[in-house]
């Protein structure tokens, strides 16, 4: 079915430009395996939104880029448009968007597949937390903008490790969204927080170990990673995302991985509690 009326672009693929290798030395992990990077979290940064939060993750040692920066705004709860069908609950919509300048390769203004994927994950994580039946016939929009991404360097793209960074981004999205939802005063069963753990191979001997809050470029190879959205007071998981090769010989391995990710999320949940306290008491 050739198109005879319009002039379309070529159907085939084109090759992306090649860049020289980054001259920078590879970063290595200096933190302990069970240490997470420190974060800065502040709520109420956008006055026009009903709730907002800003999250910054500590930059790596000696890295030229600074750490990940995210902002989240919550609009609502507000009444649904007239044309929308009746809903006995609050309708939650989540948008995750990289700023065009957030990564080395420019992100377009339209959401791409990975951004849509992230927003579905975020929706799952938040939906379990909100007490949605207190707001029938209303909607709330949660918009997360990633101002600066985690891995901006060509190296990550070459390694194919950017997919692992998605987990860190998701974890940060969950944390910042939870703080913003709390700032908006929407009733939740608990404050949810994100945490990541990964199984990395140690370069010298064929062994592997579990680290918290992994940065893909700091490790030789990531075998598997797990991201959870965790409710610390209820001891429940609202979103679980695990991928990678989990060896079949050790059935306890995936259990360990999830448990470590939960442990990491407990750390971030303290940051949320701290910043919310600060917002309330004004100290």
């Amino acid at each position, binding site marked *: *079915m*050739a*198109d*005879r*009326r*319009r002039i379309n672009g070529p*159907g085939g693929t084109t090759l992306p430009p090649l860049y020289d290798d980054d001259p920078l030395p590879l970063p290595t992990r200096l933190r302990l395996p069970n240490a997470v990077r420190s974060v800065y979290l502040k709520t109420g940064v956008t006055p026009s939104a009903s709730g907002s939060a800003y999250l910054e993750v500590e930059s790596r040692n000696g890295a030229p880029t600074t750490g990940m920066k995210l902002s989240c705004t919550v609009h609502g709860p507000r009444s649904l448009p007239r*044309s929308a*069908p009746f809903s006995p609950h609050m309708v939650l919509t989540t948008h995750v968007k990289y700023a065009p300048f957030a990564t080395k390769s420019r992100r377009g203004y339209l959401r791409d597949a990975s951004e849509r994927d992230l927003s579905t994950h975020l929706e799952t994580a938040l939906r379990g937390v909100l007490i949605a039946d207190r707001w029938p016939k209303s909607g709330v929009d949660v918009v997360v903008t990633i101002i600066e991404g985690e891995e901006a360097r060509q190296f990550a793209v070459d390694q194919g490790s950017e997919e692992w960074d998605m987990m860190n981004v998701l974890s940060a999205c969950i944390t910042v969204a939870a703080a913003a939802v709390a700032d908006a005063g929407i009733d939740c069963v608990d404050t949810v927080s994100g945490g990541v753990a990964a199984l990395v191979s140690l370069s010298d001997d064929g062994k592997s170990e579990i680290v918290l809050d992994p940065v893909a470029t700091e490790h030789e190879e990531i075998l598997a990673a797990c991201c959870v959205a965790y409710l610390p007071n209820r001891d429940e998981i609202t979103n679980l995302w695990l991928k990678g090769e989990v060896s079949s010989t050790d059935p306890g391995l995936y259990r360990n991985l999830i448990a470590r990710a939960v442990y990491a999320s407990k750390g971030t949940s303290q940051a949320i509690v701290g910043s919310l306290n600060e917002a309330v008491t004004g100290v």
Partner: protein
Amino acid sequence: MPLDTSTYSLALLRVDGRRWNELRRLHAQIRIQAAADGSSYLEMGNTKVMCVLTGPSEPQQQQQGQRRGQATAGGGKDAAINVSIVVAGFASVDHKKRGRNDKRTQELELIIAKTFASVAHTHLFPHSSISLALHVLSADGSLLAALLNAATLALIDAGIPMSDYIAACTAGSTSSYAAADDSADPLLDLNTQEEQELPFITVATLGETDRVAVLNCESRVQVSRLEGMLAVAVDGCKEVKQLLDKAIKAKGAKMIREGAAEKSDAMAMDLDE
């Protein structure tokens, strides 16, 4: 790959060995899917399409239909006919991904929606919608014709009243625009290779009548050739209609045979002979 027209004039055989007025093998099936209200599968040579029909049902939200970019015809007091065509990435020789907003696909959707809105008795189902999902599994020429035929079958399967069948096929002409040779023959039912080389029209008629429901021409063709092409295409449509009719009657006969058997054990025993 240019079509070697010289061989045609020698043996009067086309690239796939057909004569000028021969259709490709047409294989049609209806009621292929239990979950749908009406469904059909149609092969015209190597063009393979499938149609899944839902409805008449409560219309989906108006704006949603608009946003999805589906072609809609009718609506309001009559049933709206929504058509969406999905061309599978593996349908043609080279893999090509066509999005939902592909202009070419939208054009086809609109032609089909408008055609059936005029033929089906949509006034019997006010404020409802009939959704046709057409899947192109393999495309080898005469795509619009195959889609129209498949949609006809699915509508019949769903029991939606229509004034008659819509039977469609294509016709081309061996003469190119430049060559002013008088010996050009019209050809029936073109495949991709012929479609790329020759001017052609897609015609759909209302059943076996001479009434044309769709006439679509996207290539330049000499006016003098058009009449011959049209005549051949209308004859082809009549042939197609008979083949579609046969497929439906065969399925009907089969269902009566099987349906009678099913009825007796599903209902009471007094039906048992």
